[in-house]
Protein backbone atom coordinates (compact mmCIF):
# COMPACT_ATOMS: atom_id res chain seq x y z
CA UNK A 1 0.00 0.00 0.00
CA UNK A 2 1.21 3.51 -0.83
CA UNK A 3 2.15 5.79 2.06
CA UNK A 4 -0.50 8.43 2.78
CA UNK A 5 1.81 11.05 1.34
CA UNK A 6 2.30 9.16 -1.90
CA UNK A 7 -1.46 8.53 -2.09
CA UNK A 8 -2.45 12.16 -1.48
CA UNK A 9 -0.80 15.15 -3.17
CA UNK A 10 -2.70 17.36 -0.69
CA UNK A 11 -0.99 15.70 2.27
CA UNK A 12 2.36 15.65 0.50
CA UNK A 13 2.00 19.40 -0.03
CA UNK A 14 1.25 20.06 3.66
CA UNK A 15 4.13 17.83 4.71
CA UNK A 16 6.40 19.82 2.42
CA UNK A 17 5.66 23.18 4.05
CA UNK A 18 8.40 24.65 6.21
CA UNK A 19 7.49 25.79 9.72
CA UNK A 20 7.50 29.39 8.53
CA UNK A 21 5.16 28.58 5.64
CA UNK A 22 2.87 26.59 7.93
CA UNK A 23 2.66 29.48 10.40
CA UNK A 24 1.91 31.87 7.54
CA UNK A 25 -1.02 29.64 6.57
CA UNK A 26 -2.15 29.52 10.21
CA UNK A 27 -2.08 33.31 10.51
CA UNK A 28 -4.11 33.74 7.31
CA UNK A 29 -6.77 31.32 8.54
CA UNK A 30 -6.71 32.77 12.07
CA UNK A 31 -7.28 36.32 10.85
CA UNK A 32 -10.17 35.19 8.68
CA UNK A 33 -11.67 33.42 11.70
CA UNK A 34 -11.22 36.43 14.01
CA UNK A 35 -12.63 38.86 11.42
CA UNK A 36 -15.73 36.73 11.17
CA UNK A 37 -16.09 36.23 14.92
CA UNK A 38 -15.65 39.91 15.70
CA UNK A 39 -18.60 40.61 13.40
CA UNK A 40 -20.79 37.63 14.33
CA UNK A 41 -19.98 36.49 17.88
CA UNK A 42 -20.73 38.88 20.76
CA UNK A 43 -18.78 36.55 23.09
CA UNK A 44 -15.54 36.77 21.12
CA UNK A 45 -16.07 40.45 20.26
CA UNK A 46 -16.30 41.19 23.98
CA UNK A 47 -13.14 39.18 24.63
CA UNK A 48 -11.24 41.05 21.94
CA UNK A 49 -12.55 44.42 23.15
CA UNK A 50 -11.63 43.63 26.75
CA UNK A 51 -8.05 42.97 25.65
CA UNK A 52 -7.96 46.11 23.50
CA UNK A 53 -7.73 43.99 20.35
CA UNK A 54 -9.33 44.29 16.96
CA UNK A 55 -8.94 41.58 14.32
CA UNK A 56 -6.55 43.88 12.47
CA UNK A 57 -4.26 44.08 15.50
CA UNK A 58 -3.50 40.36 15.32
CA UNK A 59 -0.61 40.77 12.92
CA UNK A 60 1.36 37.78 14.18
CA UNK A 61 0.76 34.48 15.98
CA UNK A 62 2.93 35.85 18.78
CA UNK A 63 0.57 38.78 19.42
CA UNK A 64 -2.38 36.39 19.36
CA UNK A 65 -0.77 34.05 21.90
CA UNK A 66 0.32 36.86 24.18
CA UNK A 67 -2.79 39.01 24.16
CA UNK A 68 -5.93 37.12 23.15
CA UNK A 69 -7.78 36.04 26.34
CA UNK A 70 -8.11 32.30 26.91
CA UNK A 71 -11.49 30.63 27.52
CA UNK A 72 -12.30 27.74 29.82
CA UNK A 73 -15.13 25.28 30.16
CA UNK A 74 -16.52 27.46 32.99
CA UNK A 75 -16.56 30.50 30.65
CA UNK A 76 -18.53 28.54 28.04
CA UNK A 77 -20.99 27.20 30.61
CA UNK A 78 -21.59 30.73 31.95
CA UNK A 79 -22.07 32.00 28.38
CA UNK A 80 -24.61 29.24 27.69
CA UNK A 81 -26.48 30.10 30.87
CA UNK A 82 -26.66 33.77 29.91
CA UNK A 83 -27.50 33.12 26.25
CA UNK A 84 -29.19 29.72 25.95
CA UNK A 85 -28.82 27.32 24.35
CA UNK A 86 -25.58 27.90 22.40
CA UNK A 87 -24.15 30.95 24.11
CA UNK A 88 -23.13 34.18 22.43
CA UNK A 89 -20.03 32.44 21.11
CA UNK A 90 -22.00 30.51 18.43
CA UNK A 91 -20.78 32.72 15.58
CA UNK A 92 -23.40 31.67 13.00
CA UNK A 93 -27.15 32.37 12.82
CA UNK A 94 -29.02 29.78 14.92
CA UNK A 95 -31.03 28.72 11.84
CA UNK A 96 -27.77 27.58 10.24
CA UNK A 97 -27.07 25.05 13.00
CA UNK A 98 -27.34 21.67 11.31
CA UNK A 99 -25.92 19.46 14.04
CA UNK A 100 -25.86 19.87 17.80
CA UNK A 101 -23.05 18.29 19.78
CA UNK A 102 -22.44 18.31 23.49
CA UNK A 103 -19.46 17.33 25.58
CA UNK A 104 -19.78 14.13 27.57
CA UNK A 105 -20.39 15.66 30.98
CA UNK A 106 -17.93 13.33 32.68
CA UNK A 107 -16.21 16.26 34.40
CA UNK A 108 -19.29 16.85 36.54
CA UNK A 109 -19.20 20.60 35.79
CA UNK A 110 -21.82 20.56 33.04
CA UNK A 111 -21.96 19.97 29.31
CA UNK A 112 -20.77 22.43 26.70
CA UNK A 113 -23.07 22.72 23.69
CA UNK A 114 -21.82 23.22 20.15
CA UNK A 115 -23.85 24.22 17.09
CA UNK A 116 -22.30 23.06 13.83
CA UNK A 117 -23.15 24.27 10.32
CA UNK A 118 -23.54 22.08 7.23
CA UNK A 119 -20.02 23.11 6.29
CA UNK A 120 -18.79 22.06 9.75
CA UNK A 121 -20.37 18.63 9.36
CA UNK A 122 -18.16 18.02 6.34
CA UNK A 123 -15.15 19.42 8.20
CA UNK A 124 -15.93 17.25 11.22
CA UNK A 125 -16.03 14.25 8.90
CA UNK A 126 -12.75 15.34 7.32
CA UNK A 127 -11.15 15.66 10.76
CA UNK A 128 -11.96 11.98 11.30
CA UNK A 129 -11.14 10.83 7.77
CA UNK A 130 -7.75 12.57 7.77
CA UNK A 131 -6.17 10.70 10.73
CA UNK A 132 -7.64 7.41 9.57
CA UNK A 133 -6.29 7.96 6.06
CA UNK A 134 -2.89 8.63 7.62
CA UNK A 135 -3.25 5.34 9.52
CA UNK A 136 -4.00 3.36 6.34
CA UNK A 137 -7.76 3.56 5.75
CA UNK A 138 -8.55 3.90 2.03
CA UNK A 139 -11.66 4.26 -0.15
CA UNK A 140 -13.40 0.91 -0.43
CA UNK A 141 -12.14 -0.43 2.88
CA UNK A 142 -14.43 -2.10 5.40
CA UNK A 143 -14.32 -0.37 8.78
CA UNK A 144 -15.67 -1.21 12.23
CA UNK A 145 -16.54 1.74 14.45
CA UNK A 146 -16.76 0.57 18.08
CA UNK A 147 -17.58 4.03 19.46
CA UNK A 148 -21.33 4.42 20.09
CA UNK A 149 -22.87 6.26 17.11
CA UNK A 150 -25.41 9.06 17.06
CA UNK A 151 -26.66 10.85 20.14
CA UNK A 152 -25.29 14.25 21.11
CA UNK A 153 -21.53 13.77 21.03
CA UNK A 154 -18.98 14.62 18.35
CA UNK A 155 -17.68 11.06 18.71
CA UNK A 156 -21.18 9.86 17.88
CA UNK A 157 -21.38 11.71 14.54
CA UNK A 158 -17.87 12.42 13.29
CA UNK A 159 -16.83 8.83 12.63
CA UNK A 160 -19.90 8.09 10.48
CA UNK A 161 -19.32 11.20 8.39
CA UNK A 162 -15.59 10.49 8.20
CA UNK A 163 -16.05 6.96 6.89
CA UNK A 164 -18.76 8.12 4.48
CA UNK A 165 -16.77 10.92 2.90
CA UNK A 166 -13.61 8.91 2.54
CA UNK A 167 -15.57 6.25 0.67
CA UNK A 168 -15.19 3.43 3.20
CA UNK A 169 -17.93 1.06 4.30
CA UNK A 170 -18.64 1.73 7.96
CA UNK A 171 -20.23 -0.69 10.41
CA UNK A 172 -21.22 1.32 13.47
CA UNK A 173 -21.38 -1.44 16.02
CA UNK A 174 -20.51 0.60 19.11
CA UNK A 175 -23.15 0.62 21.80
CA UNK A 176 -25.58 -1.48 19.80
CA UNK A 177 -23.98 -4.94 19.86
CA UNK A 178 -22.37 -6.90 22.68
CA UNK A 179 -18.67 -7.62 22.32
CA UNK A 180 -19.37 -11.22 21.30
CA UNK A 181 -21.98 -10.08 18.77
CA UNK A 182 -19.44 -7.63 17.32
CA UNK A 183 -16.94 -10.44 16.92
CA UNK A 184 -19.54 -12.66 15.24
CA UNK A 185 -20.36 -9.88 12.79
CA UNK A 186 -16.69 -9.18 12.05
CA UNK A 187 -16.10 -12.86 11.35
CA UNK A 188 -19.05 -12.93 8.94
CA UNK A 189 -17.80 -9.84 7.11
CA UNK A 190 -14.55 -11.60 6.41
CA UNK A 191 -12.56 -8.67 5.11
CA UNK A 192 -12.40 -6.09 7.87
CA UNK A 193 -9.63 -3.56 7.17
CA UNK A 194 -9.90 -1.05 9.99
CA UNK A 195 -11.14 -0.73 13.58
CA UNK A 196 -11.77 2.47 15.50
CA UNK A 197 -12.21 2.07 19.25
CA UNK A 198 -11.33 3.67 22.55
CA UNK A 199 -8.11 2.32 24.03
CA UNK A 200 -10.12 0.60 26.72
CA UNK A 201 -12.52 -1.01 24.27
CA UNK A 202 -9.79 -2.30 21.97
CA UNK A 203 -8.39 -4.01 25.05
CA UNK A 204 -11.82 -5.54 25.81
CA UNK A 205 -12.30 -6.66 22.20
CA UNK A 206 -8.85 -8.23 21.95
CA UNK A 207 -9.29 -9.96 25.29
CA UNK A 208 -12.68 -11.33 24.20
CA UNK A 209 -11.21 -12.69 20.95
CA UNK A 210 -8.40 -14.40 22.81
CA UNK A 211 -10.87 -15.86 25.29
CA UNK A 212 -12.65 -17.43 22.34
CA UNK A 213 -9.32 -18.91 21.21
CA UNK A 214 -9.35 -16.66 18.14
CA UNK A 215 -6.06 -15.20 16.97
CA UNK A 216 -6.94 -11.73 15.65
CA UNK A 217 -4.18 -11.75 12.99
CA UNK A 218 -5.50 -15.04 11.60
CA UNK A 219 -9.19 -14.19 11.93
CA UNK A 220 -8.72 -10.78 10.26
CA UNK A 221 -5.77 -11.07 7.88
CA UNK A 222 -6.77 -7.98 5.85
CA UNK A 223 -6.58 -5.57 8.79
CA UNK A 224 -4.62 -2.45 7.84
CA UNK A 225 -4.75 -0.54 11.11
CA UNK A 226 -6.35 -0.26 14.53
CA UNK A 227 -7.05 3.29 15.63
CA UNK A 228 -7.48 4.28 19.26
CA UNK A 229 -8.18 7.48 21.12
CA UNK A 230 -9.15 8.87 24.48
CA UNK A 231 -6.87 7.10 26.97
CA UNK A 232 -3.27 6.36 27.82
CA UNK A 233 -1.67 2.92 27.78
CA UNK A 234 1.68 1.28 28.42
CA UNK A 235 3.95 0.71 25.46
CA UNK A 236 4.16 -3.00 26.30
CA UNK A 237 0.39 -3.23 25.81
CA UNK A 238 0.63 -1.49 22.42
CA UNK A 239 3.35 -3.91 21.31
CA UNK A 240 1.21 -6.89 22.38
CA UNK A 241 -1.80 -5.48 20.52
CA UNK A 242 0.25 -5.07 17.32
CA UNK A 243 1.56 -8.61 17.74
CA UNK A 244 -1.91 -10.07 18.26
CA UNK A 245 -3.46 -8.24 15.32
CA UNK A 246 -0.53 -8.30 12.90
CA UNK A 247 -0.95 -4.65 11.96
CA UNK A 248 0.02 -1.33 13.40
CA UNK A 249 -1.78 0.52 16.14
CA UNK A 250 -2.50 4.18 15.45
CA UNK A 251 -3.67 6.88 17.82
CA UNK A 252 -5.32 10.27 17.52
CA UNK A 253 -5.86 13.24 19.76
CA UNK A 254 -9.29 14.74 19.39
CA UNK A 255 -12.20 16.29 21.23
CA UNK A 256 -15.50 18.06 20.70
CA UNK A 257 -13.63 21.36 21.03
CA UNK A 258 -11.38 20.32 18.14
CA UNK A 259 -14.45 19.16 16.13
CA UNK A 260 -12.80 15.80 15.63
CA UNK A 261 -9.15 14.85 15.58
CA UNK A 262 -6.50 17.52 15.73
CA UNK A 263 -3.55 15.19 15.36
CA UNK A 264 -2.61 11.57 14.86
CA UNK A 265 0.19 9.15 14.34
CA UNK A 266 1.03 8.94 10.69
CA UNK A 267 1.98 5.74 8.88
CA UNK A 268 4.38 4.80 11.71
CA UNK A 269 1.88 3.95 14.47
CA UNK A 270 2.26 4.33 18.24
CA UNK A 271 5.47 2.33 18.62
CA UNK A 272 8.67 3.30 16.82
CA UNK A 273 10.83 0.73 15.08
CA UNK A 274 13.22 0.81 18.02
CA UNK A 275 10.46 0.23 20.58
CA UNK A 276 9.89 3.78 21.84
CA UNK A 277 6.63 5.70 22.03
CA UNK A 278 5.59 7.19 18.69
CA UNK A 279 4.28 10.68 18.07
CA UNK A 280 0.90 12.23 17.40
CA UNK A 281 1.62 14.82 14.72
CA UNK A 282 -0.64 17.85 15.06
CA UNK A 283 -2.81 19.03 12.16
CA UNK A 284 -1.79 22.60 12.80
CA UNK A 285 -3.19 23.94 9.56
CA UNK A 286 -6.68 23.08 10.88
CA UNK A 287 -6.19 23.62 14.64
CA UNK A 288 -3.75 26.02 16.21
CA UNK A 289 -2.04 24.46 19.22
CA UNK A 290 -0.23 26.01 22.14
CA UNK A 291 1.28 23.74 24.77
CA UNK A 292 1.88 25.69 27.93
CA UNK A 293 2.68 25.53 31.61
CA UNK A 294 -0.81 25.65 33.18
CA UNK A 295 0.40 27.90 36.00
CA UNK A 296 2.40 30.49 34.08
CA UNK A 297 0.97 30.04 30.54
CA UNK A 298 4.56 30.11 29.28
CA UNK A 299 5.26 27.80 26.30
CA UNK A 300 6.38 24.32 27.37
CA UNK A 301 9.88 23.37 26.21
CA UNK A 302 10.17 20.42 23.85
CA UNK A 303 10.17 17.16 25.83
CA UNK A 304 8.16 18.53 28.77
CA UNK A 305 4.51 18.02 29.74
CA UNK A 306 2.14 20.96 29.30
CA UNK A 307 -1.51 21.84 28.87
CA UNK A 308 -2.91 21.98 25.37
CA UNK A 309 -4.66 25.22 24.39
CA UNK A 310 -6.51 25.02 21.08
CA UNK A 311 -7.97 27.35 18.46
CA UNK A 312 -10.16 26.15 15.59
CA UNK A 313 -8.99 27.52 12.25
CA UNK A 314 -11.53 25.59 10.17
CA UNK A 315 -14.79 25.53 12.17
CA UNK A 316 -17.47 28.21 11.88
CA UNK A 317 -20.18 27.08 14.34
CA UNK A 318 -19.22 27.39 18.04
CA UNK A 319 -15.50 27.66 17.33
CA UNK A 320 -13.06 27.67 20.21
CA UNK A 321 -10.36 30.33 20.37
CA UNK A 322 -7.53 29.80 22.85
CA UNK A 323 -9.54 27.19 24.74
CA UNK A 324 -7.79 25.64 27.73
CA UNK A 325 -8.45 21.93 27.31
CA UNK A 326 -7.05 20.76 30.65
CA UNK A 327 -5.42 17.93 28.66
CA UNK A 328 -1.82 17.21 29.58
CA UNK A 329 0.62 16.04 26.89
CA UNK A 330 4.35 15.72 26.38
CA UNK A 331 5.27 18.29 23.72
CA UNK A 332 7.73 17.48 20.95
CA UNK A 333 8.74 20.46 18.80
CA UNK A 334 8.74 19.94 15.01
CA UNK A 335 12.53 19.99 14.86
CA UNK A 336 12.72 17.10 17.34
CA UNK A 337 10.17 14.81 15.68
CA UNK A 338 12.57 13.42 13.09
CA UNK A 339 9.78 13.64 10.49
CA UNK A 340 11.26 16.52 8.53
CA UNK A 341 7.83 18.17 8.52
CA UNK A 342 6.95 21.51 10.07
CA UNK A 343 4.28 19.98 12.33
CA UNK A 344 4.73 19.93 16.09
CA UNK A 345 3.82 16.73 17.92
CA UNK A 346 2.85 15.19 21.24
CA UNK A 347 3.88 11.84 22.63
CA UNK A 348 1.59 8.84 22.11
CA UNK A 349 -0.09 7.01 24.94
CA UNK A 350 0.54 9.49 27.70
CA UNK A 351 -2.20 12.10 27.28
CA UNK A 352 -3.81 12.76 30.64
CA UNK A 353 -5.98 15.34 32.33
CA UNK A 354 -4.70 17.99 34.65
CA UNK A 355 -8.04 17.79 36.46
CA UNK A 356 -7.94 13.96 36.70
CA UNK A 357 -4.82 14.25 38.75
CA UNK A 358 -5.22 12.95 42.27
CA UNK A 359 -3.08 14.31 45.03
CA UNK A 360 -2.36 11.23 47.13
CA UNK A 361 -0.08 11.44 50.12
CA UNK A 362 1.57 14.47 48.59
CA UNK A 363 2.16 12.84 45.21
CA UNK A 364 0.63 13.90 41.90
CA UNK A 365 -0.98 10.72 40.57
CA UNK A 366 -2.59 10.42 37.16
CA UNK A 367 -4.87 7.45 36.40
CA UNK A 368 -3.09 7.09 33.06
CA UNK A 369 0.20 6.51 34.89
CA UNK A 370 -1.34 3.74 36.98
CA UNK A 371 -2.88 2.24 33.82
CA UNK A 372 0.61 2.20 32.36
CA UNK A 373 2.00 0.34 35.38
CA UNK A 374 -0.83 -2.21 35.62
CA UNK A 375 -1.28 -3.00 31.94
CA UNK A 376 2.43 -3.49 31.43
CA UNK A 377 1.56 -6.94 32.86
CA UNK A 378 -0.04 -9.05 30.16
CA UNK A 379 -1.54 -11.42 32.75
CA UNK A 380 -3.77 -8.65 34.10
CA UNK A 381 -7.16 -8.32 32.40
CA UNK A 382 -8.44 -5.16 34.08
CA UNK A 383 -8.63 -3.28 37.35
CA UNK A 384 -10.57 -0.71 39.34
CA UNK A 385 -9.12 1.59 41.95
CA UNK A 386 -10.39 3.66 44.80
CA UNK A 387 -8.84 6.09 47.21
CA UNK A 388 -10.55 6.29 50.56
CA UNK A 389 -10.13 7.43 54.12
CA UNK A 390 -9.96 4.81 56.86
CA UNK A 391 -11.78 5.16 60.16
CA UNK A 392 -8.61 6.43 61.77
CA UNK A 393 -8.23 9.08 59.06
CA UNK A 394 -5.49 7.53 56.93
CA UNK A 395 -5.55 7.66 53.14
CA UNK A 396 -5.57 4.22 51.58
CA UNK A 397 -5.46 3.13 47.96
CA UNK A 398 -7.12 -0.10 46.93
CA UNK A 399 -6.74 -1.70 43.54
CA UNK A 400 -9.09 -4.55 42.67
CA UNK A 401 -7.47 -6.53 39.93
CA UNK A 402 -8.71 -9.34 37.67
CA UNK A 403 -6.35 -11.75 35.96
CA UNK A 404 -6.58 -12.62 32.29
CA UNK A 405 -8.40 -15.92 31.74
CA UNK A 406 -5.36 -18.10 31.18
CA UNK A 407 -3.55 -16.76 34.24
CA UNK A 408 -6.70 -16.93 36.38
CA UNK A 409 -7.08 -20.62 35.53
CA UNK A 410 -3.49 -21.79 35.71
CA UNK A 411 -1.50 -19.56 38.09
CA UNK A 412 -0.31 -21.08 41.34
CA UNK A 413 -0.48 -19.04 44.58
CA UNK A 414 3.24 -18.32 44.20
CA UNK A 415 2.79 -17.06 40.64
CA UNK A 416 -0.09 -14.84 41.79
CA UNK A 417 2.04 -13.44 44.60
CA UNK A 418 4.89 -12.77 42.23
CA UNK A 419 2.60 -11.01 39.72
CA UNK A 420 0.98 -8.90 42.44
CA UNK A 421 4.35 -7.89 43.80
CA UNK A 422 5.46 -6.88 40.33
CA UNK A 423 2.30 -4.79 39.78
CA UNK A 424 2.67 -3.08 43.20
CA UNK A 425 6.31 -2.30 42.48
CA UNK A 426 5.50 -0.93 39.03
CA UNK A 427 2.83 1.37 40.49
CA UNK A 428 5.25 2.51 43.18
CA UNK A 429 8.01 3.17 40.63
CA UNK A 430 5.81 5.26 38.35
CA UNK A 431 3.67 7.04 40.98
CA UNK A 432 5.53 6.85 44.26
CA UNK A 433 2.59 5.27 46.10
CA UNK A 434 2.09 1.81 47.55
CA UNK A 435 -1.34 0.29 46.95
CA UNK A 436 -3.28 -2.62 48.41
CA UNK A 437 -4.06 -5.20 45.75
CA UNK A 438 -7.09 -7.48 45.88
CA UNK A 439 -7.82 -10.13 43.29
CA UNK A 440 -11.39 -10.21 42.00
CA UNK A 441 -13.27 -12.04 39.26
CA UNK A 442 -13.31 -10.29 35.90
CA UNK A 443 -17.11 -10.05 36.02
CA UNK A 444 -16.91 -8.00 39.24
CA UNK A 445 -15.22 -5.13 37.40
CA UNK A 446 -17.24 -2.66 35.31
CA UNK A 447 -17.00 -2.72 31.50
CA UNK A 448 -16.71 0.51 29.56
CA UNK A 449 -17.94 0.99 25.99
CA UNK A 450 -15.95 4.21 25.57
CA UNK A 451 -13.74 6.05 28.04
CA UNK A 452 -12.83 3.98 31.07
CA UNK A 453 -13.42 5.52 34.49
CA UNK A 454 -11.48 3.13 36.64
CA UNK A 455 -10.88 5.40 39.63
CA UNK A 456 -13.11 6.56 42.44
CA UNK A 457 -12.00 9.12 44.95
CA UNK A 458 -14.01 8.40 48.10
CA UNK A 459 -11.81 10.29 50.53
CA UNK A 460 -14.35 12.96 51.36
CA UNK A 461 -16.90 10.30 52.36
CA UNK A 462 -14.47 9.21 55.04
CA UNK A 463 -13.95 12.69 56.43
CA UNK A 464 -16.22 12.25 59.42
CA UNK A 465 -15.96 13.89 62.82
Amino acid at each position, binding site marked *: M*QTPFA*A*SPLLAHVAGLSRTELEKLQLTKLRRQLDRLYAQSPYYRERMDSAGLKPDSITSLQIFKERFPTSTKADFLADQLAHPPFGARLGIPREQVALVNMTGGTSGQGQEIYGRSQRDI*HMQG*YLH*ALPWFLAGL*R*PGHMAINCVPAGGMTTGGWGPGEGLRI*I*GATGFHVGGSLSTDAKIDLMLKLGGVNFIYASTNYLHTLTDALLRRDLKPREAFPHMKALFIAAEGYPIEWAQKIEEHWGCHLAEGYGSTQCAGFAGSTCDQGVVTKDGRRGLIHLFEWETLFEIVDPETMEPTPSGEVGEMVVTNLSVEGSPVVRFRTGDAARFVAHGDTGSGWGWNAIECGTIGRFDDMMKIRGNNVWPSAIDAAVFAHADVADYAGRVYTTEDGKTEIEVRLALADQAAMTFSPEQRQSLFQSVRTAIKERNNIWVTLIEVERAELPEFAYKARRWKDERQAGYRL
Partner: protein
Amino acid sequence: MSEPKTGDDAILANMLREVETLCRSEDALLCGQYAHLRDRIRALIELRECFQVKPK
Protein backbone atom coordinates in the same frame (compact mmCIF):
# COMPACT_ATOMS: atom_id res chain seq x y z
CA MET B 1 -34.12 14.56 -27.92
CA SER B 2 -34.80 15.96 -24.42
CA GLU B 3 -35.38 19.67 -23.92
CA PRO B 4 -32.37 21.77 -22.92
CA LYS B 5 -32.18 22.18 -19.16
CA THR B 6 -32.82 25.58 -17.67
CA GLY B 7 -32.69 27.21 -14.24
CA ASP B 8 -31.87 24.91 -11.29
CA ASP B 9 -31.69 21.85 -13.55
CA ALA B 10 -29.09 23.48 -15.77
CA ILE B 11 -27.01 24.53 -12.78
CA LEU B 12 -27.11 21.05 -11.26
CA ALA B 13 -26.32 19.39 -14.61
CA ASN B 14 -23.36 21.71 -14.98
CA MET B 15 -22.20 21.00 -11.41
CA LEU B 16 -22.44 17.27 -12.09
CA ARG B 17 -20.27 17.58 -15.20
CA GLU B 18 -17.68 19.60 -13.26
CA VAL B 19 -17.63 17.30 -10.27
CA GLU B 20 -17.21 14.23 -12.49
CA THR B 21 -13.88 15.76 -13.47
CA LEU B 22 -12.94 16.17 -9.80
CA CYS B 23 -13.84 12.53 -9.18
CA ARG B 24 -11.05 11.48 -11.52
CA SER B 25 -8.57 12.93 -8.99
CA GLU B 26 -5.69 10.67 -8.10
CA ASP B 27 -5.64 12.05 -4.55
CA ALA B 28 -6.97 9.16 -2.46
CA LEU B 29 -7.79 11.48 0.44
CA LEU B 30 -9.94 13.72 -1.75
CA CYS B 31 -11.52 11.34 -4.28
CA GLY B 32 -14.01 9.96 -1.77
CA GLN B 33 -15.01 13.48 -0.76
CA TYR B 34 -15.50 14.45 -4.39
CA ALA B 35 -17.60 11.32 -4.91
CA HIS B 36 -19.66 12.28 -1.87
CA LEU B 37 -20.29 15.71 -3.39
CA ARG B 38 -21.14 14.21 -6.81
CA ASP B 39 -23.67 11.82 -5.34
CA ARG B 40 -25.38 14.60 -3.36
CA ILE B 41 -25.77 16.46 -6.67
CA ARG B 42 -27.05 13.30 -8.37
CA ALA B 43 -29.66 12.93 -5.63
CA LEU B 44 -30.82 16.52 -6.11
CA ILE B 45 -31.08 16.01 -9.87
CA GLU B 46 -33.09 12.86 -9.35
CA LEU B 47 -35.51 14.31 -6.83
CA ARG B 48 -36.21 17.16 -9.28
CA GLU B 49 -37.21 14.70 -12.01
CA CYS B 50 -40.84 15.14 -10.91
CA PHE B 51 -40.78 18.44 -12.78
CA GLN B 52 -40.27 16.55 -16.05
CA VAL B 53 -43.84 15.25 -15.90
CA LYS B 54 -46.01 18.17 -16.94
CA PRO B 55 -49.56 18.33 -15.55
CA LYS B 56 -52.22 18.33 -18.27
